[in-house]
């Protein structure tokens, strides 16, 4: 029972990080139908930037409290990643708006390769340990433990989601985004500027990815130049899982994916009599994805995409 509770906690923490990254994927997809392969790399750049800032601050201000350093580092990293994602969209995706669908996909792959190379130049291709800025003493809940970092992850995710939902559902910007996702041309006729909306979407996506990236770094204690790849892939899976283009779907998909992975890897050994071990963790995401999509071809909360009339 304790193990189950522990795995649920771990799964929720993992899932909330997936959810944040998946939101960036799904927003971009909802508006311009692009699988943004570079999203994970933006996360990586953000996490590495925050690592540098943390290092600098710990050196220059030895007495500063951990949470203050963390907030400042995250803010700076968000700023860097937001500018980066804005530039990427403008340079690599915007000129290809009216090109065949696969063209921006390839530039996205190119951007992701490029960003990894640049990150290796700046930060060197080595694993770096991320200092623990919060207390490490875990709290006990029932028979399970939860660390302050994990509590922070859950809290920050909840707050970020609340802000995003407010932004999308109750502001002019959000209405413009929804209108653009629905039909950019008609939205343009109604006074929305689709280009601005798309830029804003990329900026918001970058901020969410960096928040997730810093939390990943805190949770696992390491940062490196390929750290964005697998979480990016999983988050994309989560977005598709929930029904791509649907914000609520991304959150539910992310959380479910985290739970499935965590509980699955905890029990796979027992279930298969030791034939499959926890080294098969990464398989769950994909197996579940395939089963879900076979049953519901447009994801859990996805609308049925209208076939061409």
């Amino acid at each position: 029972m304790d193990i189950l509770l522990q795995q649920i906690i771990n799964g929720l923490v993992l899932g909330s990080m997936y959810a944040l990254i998946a939101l960036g994927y799904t927003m971009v997809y909802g508006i311009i139908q692009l699988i943004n392969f570079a999203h994970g790399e933006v996360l990586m750049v953000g996490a590495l930037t925050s690592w540098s800032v943390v290092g600098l601050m710990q050196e220059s201000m030895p007495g500063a409290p951990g949470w203050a350093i963390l907030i400042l580092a995250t803010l700076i990293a968000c700023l860097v990643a937001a500018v980066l994602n804005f530039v990427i969209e403008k340079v690599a995706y915007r000129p290809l708006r009216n090109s065949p669908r696969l063209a921006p996909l390839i530039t996205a792959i190119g951007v992701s390769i490029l960003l990894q190379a640049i990150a290796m130049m700046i930060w060197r291709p080595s694993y770096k340990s991320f200092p623990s800025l919060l207390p490490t003493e875990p709290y006990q809940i029932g028979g399970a433990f939860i660390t302050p970092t994990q509590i922070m992850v859950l809290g920050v995710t909840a707050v970020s989601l609340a802000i995003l939902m407010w932004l999308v559902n109750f502001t002019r910007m959000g209405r413009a985004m929804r209108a653009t996702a629905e039909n950019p041309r008609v939205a343009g006729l109604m006074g929305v500027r689709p280009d601005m909306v798309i830029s804003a979407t990329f900026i918001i996506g970058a901020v969410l990815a960096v928040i997730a990236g810093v939390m990943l770094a805190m949770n696992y204690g390491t940062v490196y130049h390929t750290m964005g790849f697998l979480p990016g892939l999983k988050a994309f899976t989560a977005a598709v899982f929930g029904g791509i283009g649907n914000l609520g779907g991304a959150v539910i998909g992310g959380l479910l994916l985290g739970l499935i992975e965590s509980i699955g890897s905890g029990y796979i050994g027992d279930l298969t009599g030791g034939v499959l071990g926890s080294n098969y963790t990464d398989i769950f995401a994909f197996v579940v994805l395939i089963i879900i999509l076979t049953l519901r071809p447009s994801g859990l909360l996805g609308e049925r995409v209208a076939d061409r009339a």
Partner: protein
Amino acid sequence: MTTVKTDPKKTAWVIAGAIALIVLPFVLQMFGNSWVRIIDLALLYVMLALGLNIVVGYAGLLDLGYVAFFAVGAYLFGLLASPHLTQNFPAIAAMFPNGLHLSFWLVIPLALLVAAIVGMLLGAPTLKLRGDYLAIVTLGFGEIIRIFMNNLDQPYNITNGPKGISDIDSVHVFGVDLARSLTIGGFEIASVTLYYFLFLALVLITIGICARLQDSRIGRAWMAIREDEIAAKAMGLNTRNLKLLAFGMGASFGGVSGALFASFQQFVSPESFSLMESIMIVAMVVLGGLGHLPGVVTGALLLAALPEVLRHVAGPLQAMTDGRIDAAILRQLLIGLAMIVIMLMRPRGLWPSPEHGQSAQPDAAGTMPVSAQDNPPGVDFPADAAPGSTGVRQSAINP
């Protein structure tokens, strides 16, 4: 391809091309075998790209897990032509006291068949899916296969896990061992050059099959599905079987290519079959010119050879910057940059089929992105490519 015209100009080009292809490895051999090796691997990628082109280019099904079939072929050859199975399974050792050394000529058709079956198995559950959903599911399949290859060393050692399978037999063609250099009349032909000719022959066969396929009823049907699946269905095409066929045929090329790769390297490990590899093959097809054979071949040659050529260029550049920029990093940087620049300059690929210029996109004049309503998720292609026809053709406009 369908009609052999006796155009003297064309014949001259074909002959010149054939001579160039035959002479090429001998010229490269003079600069060192590593250059021939690069070409060999590039040829394998050409085969992979051609196979994927059937799935993505013709049938319009975006497959991000294509490397799985490459892996299936490679592991099949690895298992059937190396001591691995006999060492780990006494039952097999008892059956084959001299070790399992299946002939190359037996393994190639087997690889073709097994990969095709796997391709159809993977394709079957995805038939209902459209566009990007298909992409992520195929990506998932690719990863699942890789994870299994990586972990199937326990409790039964089937794939030898991350260590991979070594000591794979080389190819013997008519008694000639391609792993050893051949001496004819005092002139030595290096092993890599022998492989070059084998690969070249198979690539040419593949190109021939693809070219015929394009013009066949099946090829036309695939393109109809690519353009508008609903309309294709309404016209009486069995879209389910046709899609399965596309998956199967595309996969079979991947499987053959994989078997060749295993015998060429004499070693396979899961590392060669990462997701990045699948993505690179998609990039080859798209960069070159989706659905257009010369384009696909160009794209594959370019992306496969570019990193290796850059390896030779990056060294001096590194020296110029006082070794501050590592050669490997610089290489990666340039590849990423090249992909972006090529796509920005030629969004339809380096060598698109001529008809692709006449876009059927409804809002080509507008600057706004196309909404999901106009353009349901999927691989979009401007117009039906009619290969072979040189005259001006009415572009296929979506109903």
